[in-house]
């Protein structure tokens, strides 16, 4: 085996088995040993399908049409079933996205580790295997004692579970490793440690790593090379610095422009439209319908990869034309006086069945302004927002709306107070009734209020216009809409009661970056046009500068720092905020 032969994917195509439509096509990638290739793309772009193919695995309903994948010198797609089983976890291993659901809840972690070694006859004796497990546990910075190995997955934290996943993946010393969004869902400080471990292990053991993610900042921080996927094809690839400093494909440019960055003062820019699913993709370049540079030639055939310079190449006929996405700049707020308080929280404490999770929180949300409430999972930020919305029962202290004291839960509040504070939930897939047209869902509060169907219809069309959706959308059902469209509907449903305050709870975290940027844009416009007071709850620190004038940082149920976004992010005073910011990966910082 030559020393640099890591992973090589040649002309790979995978189809939907039932229809023969391509899920991914024309995939050509190469990763040398000891290097990390970041495979970036939105959900549905086919990146996980490619990743699983490297393990010669296709999910139900997916089939390999043609292509070859070499792990080292072994071509894996043509192997028989027993040979496939042998290379999985041995020659090539996989780290899944969600460690909580990928570890078997019924088996102890020690068992789940040792069975990989046994399946590949690694170590020879059970003592040797035990020693190997201890070695691995130490490498991923987990306790090595026997008691720890006796634990079940649910007795570990998310970060620990992912470390077990890493230990499992590196256990048999693979040549190739596929990491499928392994840090999504982890807090930034945990993510930082896991990324460090991944970098360490791949370098030390000369592994070729395929790192799948939608998070550009993580790629900038971790990867050596990047491949960008759109609609099942690689549209651009090259070294990290090349791609981020000089993106050549219009889609990559939009992706970079839409990615929030902790170290950047630019505000994010979204893009309308969406990538079509297999079978509905347009002829020619799949990005053409959303591309401002598109011309007739783009719609005839899929563009060939064009070298751009260095190792960089892009699948665009205009790859060498320098065109940039208009980048916005965050407004500086220092010269402007802040609005009047709309909602004031004074010494709010809250808990769940007696266990206090929020302690003595005081905040002000101002008219026409957005306050970002940021914190890691479990910091209590959602509990605070639920208390404001009247969705949480167990809280003490005082919440005032325009100076009036609010009752504890929404049911006790006056109708006007209830209408004045509207809540938009995190998951647009779960918050809309699937059996109602979205128009009916939006109109519901009006009908309850006694409005006639005719009047309600007019208001619905009006709010749909406000969230930039055409009127006929009122007749659609939620499952006919994309994630971004659903979130627009959820916002429209909140706007229909003409609220003064909008509470947005992680409203963009289920969305792809381009869609996220568009929603952030929309929320900013609405806030300015309607003079809304907005509370934007998020774990996504880089997003803060693009959405909010003021930010409050929460940790363990307390506000640790509050101030203007510009100064808190740019020059944090508290140690906790500083550590949070330095743990957050950044494109700009990595490119310096």
């Amino acid at each position: 085996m030559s020393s640099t032969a890591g992973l090589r994917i040649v002309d790979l195509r995978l189809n939907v088995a039932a229809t023969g439509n391509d899920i991914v096509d024309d995939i050509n990638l190469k990763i040398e040993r000891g290097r990390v290739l970041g495979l970036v793309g939105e959900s549905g772009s086919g990146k996980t399908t490619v990743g699983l193919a490297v393990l010669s695995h296709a999910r139900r309903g997916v089939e390999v049409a043609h292509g070859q994948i070499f792990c080292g010198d072994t071509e894996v797609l043509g192997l028989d079933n027993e040979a496939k089983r042998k290379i999985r976890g041995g020659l090539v291993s996989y780290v899944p996205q969600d460690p909580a659901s990928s570890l078997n809840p019924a088996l102890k972690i020690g068992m789940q580790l040792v069975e990989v070694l046994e399946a590949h006859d690694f170590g020879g004796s059970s003592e040797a295997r035990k020693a190997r497990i201890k070695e691995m546990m130490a490498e991923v910075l987990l306790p090595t004692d026997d008691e720890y190995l006796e634990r079940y997955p649910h007795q570990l934290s998310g970060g620990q579970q992912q470390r077990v996943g890493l230990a499992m993946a590196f256990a048999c010393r693979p040549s190739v490793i596929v990491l499928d969004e392994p840090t999504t869902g982890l807090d930034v400080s945990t993510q930082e440690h896991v990324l460090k471990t991944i970098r360490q292990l791949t370098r030390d053991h000369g592994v070729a790593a395929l790192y799948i993610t939608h998070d550009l900042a993580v790629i900038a921080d971790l990867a050596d090379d990047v491949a960008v996927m759109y609609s099942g094809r690689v549209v651009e690839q090259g070294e990290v610095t090349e791609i981020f400093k000089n993106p050549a494909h219009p889609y990559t440019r939009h992706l970079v422009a839409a990615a929030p960055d902790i170290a950047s003062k630019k505000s994010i820019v979204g893009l309308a439209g969406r990538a079509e699913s297999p079978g509905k993709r347009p002829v020619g370049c799949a990005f053409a319908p959303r591309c401002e540079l598109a011309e007739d030639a783009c719609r005839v055939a899929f563009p060939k990869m064009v070298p751009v310079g260095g190792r960089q190449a892009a699948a665009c006929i205009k790859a060498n034309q320098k065109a940039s996405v208009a980048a916005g700049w965050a407004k500086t707020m220092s010269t402007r006086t802040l609005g009047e308080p709309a909602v004031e929280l004074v010494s709010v404490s809250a808990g769940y069945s007696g266990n206090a999770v929020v302690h003595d929180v005081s905040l002000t949300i101002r008219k026409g302004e957005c306050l970002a409430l940021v914190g890691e999972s479990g910091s209590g930020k959602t509990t605070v927002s639920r208390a404001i919305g009247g969705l949480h029962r167990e809280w003490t202290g005082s919440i005032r709306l325009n100076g009036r004291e609010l009752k504890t839960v929404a049911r006790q509040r006056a109708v006007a107070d209830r209408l004045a504070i509207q809540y938009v939930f995190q998951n647009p897939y779960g918050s809309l009734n699937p059996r109602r047209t979205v128009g009916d869902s939006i109109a519901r509060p009006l009908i309850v209020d006694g409005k006639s169907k005719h009047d309600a219809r007019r208001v619905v069309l009006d709010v749909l216009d406000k969230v930039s959706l055409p009127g006929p959308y009122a007749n659609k059902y939620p499952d006919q809409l994309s994630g971004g469209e659903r979130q627009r509907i959820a916002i429209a449903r909140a706007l229909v009661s003409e609220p003064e305050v909008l509470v947005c709870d992680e409203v963009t975290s289920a969305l792809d970056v381009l869609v996220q940027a568009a929603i952030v844009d929309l929320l900013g416009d609405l806030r300015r046009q309607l003079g809304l007071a907005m509370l934007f709850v998020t774990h996504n620190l880089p997003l803060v500068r693009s959405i909010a004038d003021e930010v409050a940082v929460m940790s363990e149920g307390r506000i640790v720092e509050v101030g203007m976004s510009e100064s808190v992010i740019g020059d944090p005073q508290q140690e906790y905020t500083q550590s949070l910011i330095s743990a957050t990966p950044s494109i700009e910082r990595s490119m310096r």
Partner: protein
Amino acid sequence: MKASIFRFVLKRIALGLLTLFIVSLLIFAVTQALPSDPAEAMLGREATPETLEALRADFGLDKPIVVQYGNWLFGILSGDLGTSYATSIPVSEYIGPRVGASFFLLLIAAIGSIPLSIVVGANAALHRDRKFDTASSLISLILAAMPEFVVGTILTIVFSTTIWQLLPAVTYLEVGAPPWSDLQGLTLPVLTLLLAVTPYVARVMRAAMVEVLESDYVEMARLKGMDERTVLWRHAMPNAVGPAFQVIALNLAYLAGGVIIVERLFNFPGIGSALADAVRSRDLPVIQFLALIIAGVYILTNLLADIGTVLVTPRLRTRLK
């Protein structure tokens, strides 16, 4: 850990006993409050008011209802189940062997149906949308749609009367004789019960298994190179039997009631036929005790299922304090 499971089991037993007590109140209230008069049912229309009065006094039916309930409950607790009105022999003597016979029938049906339904369900899930799955789904749907007496009748037609004469159509079992003394006669009732329960459990097992086989951890097990046997038995099965336990319990409990029809059909001398006879003759002590036994079976099977589920689910097991 061990102690915590023991405490959990004790708590569930205590709750089960409480449930049984409430059920006993209901049974007594319903049966004793029935507008029918056991004395009248026994003596017929020609009975004089005096003889009726005397018989009622004999049965203790003239006492206040609370006293009657107290006597009954105290009797059961001290092992005295009372005397059958219709046969004038002690209920324990009358019911005892029949309970044994029915219990034997149930046990054989359970021992047969549990592994059968797990194997059928798991295999259907494993070969999803292929021949075995389609065939087993179709057959279980047809069986589930037919009441037991139809299944039993068809079995009788096929195996003992019209087509083949292989097995007896009725059980020739003396009351009190050990139920295994007529194995031939036992075959058709057991088969009927088996066919009544297996489809439901197999379908639930299939659904649970399909879900587990689609899970991330099963995909992960394959991606780390486990062979299919290990994937199925070590990774999938333990996570699928938990939900199946609950349905198995419900079905076994259902059998305790469903056995009535099947016993009737094959003339099997168990609690089913005894209950039917007792209802006809308003034999209150027998009805009450049998109702209590059937309720007891319900409570016991559910208790066992809950404990079983907790034992195979680490997340639940480790939560016990």
